[in-house]
């Protein structure tokens, strides 16, 4: 209730202001009655969400059991916080936790910056055919599986004629080929770069759509003011897609516990395991493969809790800065 009113208070549109005043006088119920159509349009979907996403949450209780799929849920052994204790006491879990966090922050920054820059640059191309072709080509790697992309990545990084070493040697940056995949310090960078390579075009699509919806009159007005190309980008295009950027940023901050697992699994090796292992790999090894669903669920809960905390924090910061918010 309090939330609803504060939501209304934050409202800036004039029509809503009128309604707000009305709502202060009437009860919530009569307000809802006025919003019958909105209710009919959203509440069935709310029930759907509750059924498909929230109902199965009982499964989280498994984290407090020693769940064996063979037995029914109620005949399981309850173990309290034992699974959580195991995780927090395990050095490997802590290490994987840190790796996950670092890799996803790197990925987040890289993929955001590159996708926005590419969208801006594509927007500057006036030849429609060229623009469409480039845009189409750039998203193609999205359809390749990680195993194919990683195969190409390792070929490029090879010390026997790999293109990366050849180019760096030709430029005189290194004297002899570097074994890129044998050193942990390069691993995060390689993962970040491979991610950009594979997903850049795909990530850009959403910004291109946002740019497409900017009113051309705004560009004309800026031109009248004598704005150059970069000024227009800065003053028209970027503000035009700002809300999209911020919303995506908030949503993705909530996803930092999710660094993926395939690329690390495929490119990783014993020499870099201190850098390459993520929580997903940990859960696979010690949870799923061990038929240890309780441990896997416990790790999932930890992840969800952190994600949701980060999400609200990011949303709060956006609110304080007066920016678009998610919630």
């Amino acid at each position: 209730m309090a939330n609803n009113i504060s939501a209304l208070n934050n409202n800036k549109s004039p029509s809503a202001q009128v309604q707000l005043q009305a709502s202060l006088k009437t009860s919530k119920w009569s307000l809802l009655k006025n919003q019958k159509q909105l209710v009919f349009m959203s509440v069935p979907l709310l029930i759907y969400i509750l059924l498909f996403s929230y109902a199965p949450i009982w499964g989280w209780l498994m984290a407090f059991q020693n769940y064996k799929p063979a037995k029914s849920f109620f005949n399981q052994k309850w173990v309290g916080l034992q699974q959580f204790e195991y995780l927090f006491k395990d050095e490997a879990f802590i290490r994987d936790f840190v790796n996950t966090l670092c890799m996803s922050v790197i990925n987040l920054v890289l993929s955001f910056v590159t996708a926005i820059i590419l969208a801006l640059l594509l927007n500057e191309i006036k030849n429609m055919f060229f623009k469409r072709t480039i845009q189409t080509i750039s998203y193609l790697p999205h359809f390749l599986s990680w195993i194919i992309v990683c195969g190409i990545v390792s070929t490029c990084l090879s010390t026997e004629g790999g293109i990366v070493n050849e180019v760096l040697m030709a430029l005189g940056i290194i004297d002899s080929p570097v074994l890129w995949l044998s050193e942990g310090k390069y691993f995060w960078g390689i993962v970040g770069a491979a991610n950009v390579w594979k997903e850049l075009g795909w990530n850009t699509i959403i910004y291109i759509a946002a740019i497409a919806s900017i009113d051309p009159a705004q560009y004309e007005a800026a031109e009248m003011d004598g704005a150059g190309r970069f000024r227009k980008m800065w003053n028209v295009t970027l503000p035009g897609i700002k809300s999209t950027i911020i919303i995506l940023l908030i949503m993705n901050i909530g996803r930092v516990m999710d660094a993926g697992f395939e690329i690390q699994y495929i490119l990783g090796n014993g020499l870099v395991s201190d850098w390459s292992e993520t929580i997903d790999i940990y859960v696979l090894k010690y949870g799923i493969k061990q038929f240890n669903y309780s441990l896997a669920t416990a790790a999932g809960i930890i992840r969800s809790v952190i994600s949701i905390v980060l999400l609200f924090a990011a949303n709060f910061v956006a609110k304080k800065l007066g920016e678009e918010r998610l919630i």
Partner: protein
Amino acid sequence: MLGKKRLVSLCLALAMMGSVMAGCGGASESKDSGTAPTTTADSKDAALDPIEISFFISDPGQAPTADNKIYKLIKEKLGVTCKFEFLVGDKDQKIGVMVAGGDYPDVVFVDTFTNPKFTGAGALIPLEDLIAKNAPNLQKHYEPYKNKVKDSNDGHFYVMPDYGVYYNDYQTNIWQGAAFWIQKAVLADAGYPQVKTLDQYFDLIEKYQAKYPEIDGQKTIGFEVLSDGWRDFCLKNPPEHLIGHPNDGQVVVDPDTNVAEFFWDKDYAKTYYKKLNDMYNKGLIDPETFTMNYDQYMAKLSSGRVLGTFDQFWNFSNADLTLKQQNKIERTWAPCAITLDESIQPYYQDRNVLNVNTGFAITTSCENPERVIKFFDTLVTEEWQRILGWGIEGEDYSVDSNGEFVRTPEQRKNYDDQSWRLQNMAYTLWYYAPKMEGSFADGNACTPGFQPKEFYASLSDYDKNFLKQYGYETWTQFLNEAPENRISYPAWGIDLVDGSAASMANTKIGEVGTKFLPKAILSKPADFDKVWDEYVTELHKCDIQAYLDRMNDQLKWRAENWK
């Protein structure tokens, strides 16, 4: 890492099949006399009411085509339609939901690691009475092993082992298992010497590499150590073989006391890795060896410039084929059964053992278990084994004047075609169901791969000469004679119980090895001891004792129950 370990074990299990041949199919409208009359009666009874049997195979595979000639024949003669579902994604996830939901097909194929999941859920039905009453052929088939097929928890017979039951004489030709492999050109260049020890092995490679620093314009690679994912047995298993033990996974078992010892931290292991360290610093070992994935490993082997590797043949057999395709037979490899010194008797080649806990089991969802067991009973007769193993006489093979089964090059080629097999062979049924191995009463091998003539027909002139230089007839002669199997063998088949301390420790141990062994091998000679000590310290942080306790507990159980 248990997942990996499981896969390794599965593949090892497969590897143990040695040169058992991919059975072909072929329907026999042909008479095939000489089968027990009871069986014929059975199959006629069975034909009376048509039945569909649903199978879940916890291995990836492809269903036969709808017009497959062998399955058609089975339907015609036995009234049985087989509906197969194969594993596609992750085995543990699939079985997890299957067991949790209690939705089973009639028959499941289980292995050492999935068996406890099904039996633990009470999903399988005991077979001992069912077989005794309905299946005389199966009863005879498993009679010598009636103690070994018992479940280690409750003593029931749930799973019909898919292989390891031998009839009459047999001969293995190609070694599919583990060995130190050496390029044939290296041996030929050195005058076909016998290679007995680790030092001799690396000496040969070192000399050859010095003499020929390049092969076909590319740098010669002395030795490769694959460590990608679950295939890291190439890195981790050699020490046990070097001291004359068979592949028992991460332990060596004393044959006299039947007690397992964890060997990764022992001095003989250190000796081996120190040798690799020396070889790396001398430039014999490929610097990329620990960062490359399996595909890159195969690409390097296929280039013909790798002189040696420790591996199991099936793991790189495609590289062998690629070299043959390029007509570089001299760049393929011969196995060496080497040890640390000549006083140690090597133990690479093994005898086939009964593959306990792996095979078909009937679930509680099956409505007509008698009928299903009768079906398998019929299949294990010579009449049907011939159809499953060789195909249809006249179509897939013929019988020469000596009564020997022979195939034309055309017929042999068909086998290699995956599509052809899906149409013309009942491979799935042959491979996973109880089967005869060895040879039939008339002396022919149960499958073409065992037929000596088939093997010689497949050899190239280079290989014929190569074998002649050594005075051998088969590749298996490069290895030790397979000794009588110990009761402990193979110890890797022991179920560690998912999620238990033993199993978690096993995963941890694997990770430490994956991390430190490459580090030790790539270190400067002066640093080796330091890295090794660090490795041993890390190993001892794992609960090795929990792992060993479980192993020894089960070894003891075997000793008491497997007599």
